[in-house]
């Protein structure tokens, strides 16, 4: 099923922040806001909760550390213990650098992968950005409602907060 979303275009950060707050206060469901750069304060304005990617990062880091330590322990102590320079088979202090590096590597790659998956970013993506939102326009997309009158009121809210342009766009849901 698809429905038309109401899009309001703005030309400045302040206006789009105001308008976002207004749209939410007016009780409309925000589909999303599109901006050319990360607008600070928008999370509040849109009422977004903090991302949980930090936990993914933490978990991945732990996994990396565990993997690195077990690899090093297994290869140096279990699989083939060799006397290297008189050091013990389990030369733990010497294993720290590699463990650290793998911790960072796992954490970084996993976090980015999780982000890309969560944000549905991938090569070959067919999504198209709204006009000029990657340049100098800010856009608010308001979820459609049953009653056309409501949408007209929404348009009104946007216009009052300085929308320079309005549009309705069909999006897949």
């Amino acid at each position, binding site marked *: 099923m698809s429905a038309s979303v109401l899009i309001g275009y703005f030309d400045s950060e302040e206006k789009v922040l105001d308008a976002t707050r207004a749209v939410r206060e007016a009780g409309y469901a925000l589909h999303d806001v599109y901006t050319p750069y990360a607008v600070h304060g928008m999370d509040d304005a849109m009422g977004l909760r903090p991302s949980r990617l930090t936990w993914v990062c933490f978990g991945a880091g732990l996994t990396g550390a565990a993997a690195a330590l077990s690899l090093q322990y297994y290869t140096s102590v279990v699989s083939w213990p060799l*006397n*290297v320079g008189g050091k013990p088979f389990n030369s733990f202090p010497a294993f720290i650098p590699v463990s650290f590096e793998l911790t960072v590597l796992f954490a970084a790659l996993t976090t980015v992968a999780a982000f890309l998956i969560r944000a549905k970013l991938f090569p070959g993506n067919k999504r198209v950005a709204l006009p000029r939102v990657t340049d100098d326009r800010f856009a608010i997309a308001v979820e459609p409602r049953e009653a056309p009158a409501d949408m007209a009121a929404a348009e009104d809210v946007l216009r009052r907060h300085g929308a320079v342009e309005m549009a309705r766009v069909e999006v897949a849901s």
Partner: protein
Amino acid sequence: MSDTLPKYWQSLAERAGDPGVLEQARNEFAEELPVGTAFAPPDASSRRDFFKMMGLSATAALVACNRAPVQKVIPYVARPDEVTPGLALWYASTCGGCSAQCGLLLKTRDGRPIKVEGNDEHPVSRGGVCAVGQASVLSLYDASRARFPALSCKRTTWAELDAGVTEGLRKATEAGKAIRVVLPWVMGPTAEAAVRRFLTAYPTARTVRYEPLGELAAIGDAYRVTHGVRMVPDYRFDKAKVIASFGADFLGTWISPVAFTRQYTEARDAAGKREMARHFQVEPVLTLTGAAADRRFQVAPSDLTPALGALVRKLAVKAGRTVPALAQLPAPALEESSLDEMVDALWAQRSHALVVCGGDDVASQVLASTANALLGSEGTTVSLADGMALDADALSYGELLSEVRAGGVGAVLFLGVNPAYSDPRGGELETLLKAVPLSVATNDRLDETATLARYHAPDSTALESWGDAEPRRGVLSLRQPAVAPLHETRSVVESLLTWAGASQPHYDFLRARWEAEVFSRAGAAGQDFGAFWDDAVRRGVVTLPAAAVEAPAFREDGLAKALAGVARPSVEWELVLYPTVSVRDGAPANNGWLQEVPDPITKATWGNQALIAPARAKALKLNDGDVVRVGVGGKTVSLPVLVQAGTHPSVIAVAVGYGRTKAGRVADGIGANAYPLAAVVEGRARRVVPGVAVEPTGEKQPLALTQTYHRLEGRPHVREAELAAFLTNPRAGNEEEGGHGGGNGSHPLSIWSGHEYNGHRWALAVDLSACTGCSACVVSCQAENNIPSVGRDEVLRGREMHWMRVDRYYQGDEANPQVVHQPMMCQHCENAPCETVCPVLATVHSTEGLNQQVYNRCVGTRYCANNCPTKVRRFNWFDYKHDDPMERMVLNPDVVVRSRGVMEKCSMCVQRVQEAKAQAKREGRPLKDGDAQTACQQSCPAKAIHFGDINDPASAVAKLSKDGRAYRLLEELNIGSSITYLTKIRNTGSGSGT
């Protein structure tokens, strides 16, 4: 790129570049290499022929690379009985490298001789072998050796040659012309017998003894004066308590250095005997012997004889004798006090004192002989009864030249001598020989002399032929071949017999002579000669019971005449031509191992230099590598300067043996030939030349040195003590316990508990007091471990590959420094810094305490070498190809040949250790101390290196590691070295301290 490649290996490429040479090489190979003949009928009786076949399969093995090319196994058609492929066979034999004739054991694998070791049962050399002896196995495979007999340098057959030579000899005899056989002083009893047979066959024949260095001749002539017999006495350094050597490099090159080194270290075994012979050395140029001396006095070469004369005079005073002949000698420049010090020390020991003298001057040898007579040391330190008689009737080379000039010579035979190269009159030989109808050379290659001779009848090498030697009276050393002649060469004995019309195989002649002459003296009553002979061949040496020989007595009557010519000229420069321990008189020069082993003193490789004193160099503003022209009598030689500590300021010293022109691809063009500069006095060549001109040319020629820094900077790597201090305190000079705690055996603080070594734990102990620095170990190691020679260019870049080196440091005054030698090899550290840093585990520790290097795992980061505190790791910068099909035969099949890009280093001869262990296991017995020997240890003439299991409390190495003299390198680093060094003890008589 060609100039970045090592020269030694490049020369093949150069040859390849020249189509003519290439063509020649190809023909040579096509005809001579085993490929075509490998499958020719191996004579069932010639048990050593099959090496060719095995060589071929070895070739296949070397060619084998990564992915499975089809490989063939080629078995024998009929396997000789005593050969099991893969098992080494050992033959006891006798070295032919010089006149010392040491006892050898030849190791052969699959028919190929691959290693020379010392024969422990040999009573003269006693298990030691010098660098030249070690390298003789490479000379066997020298691709530049003659491969066939030649007439006017063109290939001929033995039959044609024999016919031609016999015909020539007959004609000469019929014409009443002289036949002259030019040969070295020492050939061995059987060969001398063959010479006598030849002389008998041709009545006009006489021998001419030729010796480039003139040392034996001088001694022989001196003893003719003082004792009426032309002989060389048997010097016994082991019985000496004081040694005074006037220019005799008896540890390096003089007469029998291997035997003397062993005797010398025994006489100076302070730890074992609680006393130590004091050694005085009076010499103009620092020699290996001078470096070992307790007191070294530096004199001008022309002052040697006057100084010795003054010493003899003082001895005569002590002895209460008046020797009028001594009065005429010029006064020496050497200080009175030094002379008195020596005289007092000598006189205190009298019969246990020994005075020796080097060089080619008869007068000084007469004085040395007089000194020993005055001291009464004849019979103890100088044994005339055990001496070696020299050919009393021989002519000198100078006399030969006069005869030839006079036109009375019909035939000249050169038996392995090369006067065209090594005599100052060598240039005249070419024209002179044109007047001689028959000239024959038996030299092993078409060298400077052989190319001038009409016939070339190449002799087989000592490793290919039978023979014997009598290095001390009553000690008969047998030589047996380890391989059938590789080429169409023939033993000189067989040649002589053939030309004498008594053709018979060398073996038969030898055996018959032994049956007739040796067996009868052996006192082997009731024994069958066959058993005696088999035993002699197996052991390689027979010691005959002492026969009562009357030793000739000293007489004064000839002294005045002999000493008449002694003068002390005052000149600006005196040239000294000296032999090196590696190429000696130049005969073995075409040998990569010998060219590359650094001179123990100068640390120079690949070539000779003009050695001058530091003070003189400073005055003349000359530095290492500045080329100077040394000239005398219209002849000049250009050489790079090497500023050498311990050189007398008036001396310019040049090594002989270099500058060969027809020795082969290795030696030709390396260095300059200094022989032409030698003086000729009364027909004899003399190696001390007064009044030479030295002029800088302004050119530069870099020196291929392996050590460029000569001082220890006060570091405690080499520790020494004075004898007196050592006798009261066994730890004298070794008080230092390593920088930060610890000491022998105890470990400094460590966060790790270390690994346990429950089985064997291999270790080395190196006695710095015994080591003379002769470098035999370096060559032995090179032979055992397939270490490539890299050539001059690579040495110049600091890339020699030797796994072990002998570090040489100077202490004190650089005009006359004290010298220490320190053999340096992988320390097999318990906490090896190299192991920790290798990313790929290519170097790790074995359960037996060895620091292992796995070449095939190595990726070549060189991190290990950087982190090695002793810098003993060697990197294969290029593919040092063992690509000469002949020379490759010398490779030890038990040690892998390393490829480019990998690190290598001393393995403590792990292959020998494993072999000894496997042998003990197969025989079901525990390994004994001494079963496994490293190559360096085996060949060390001084027995300064001890190898063994430090976990076995009875082993020598375990005992030595707990000795008061024991210390390890860099203990403050907590590397836990497995090599124990033992403090060097000196007996300078200066009281205590170092």
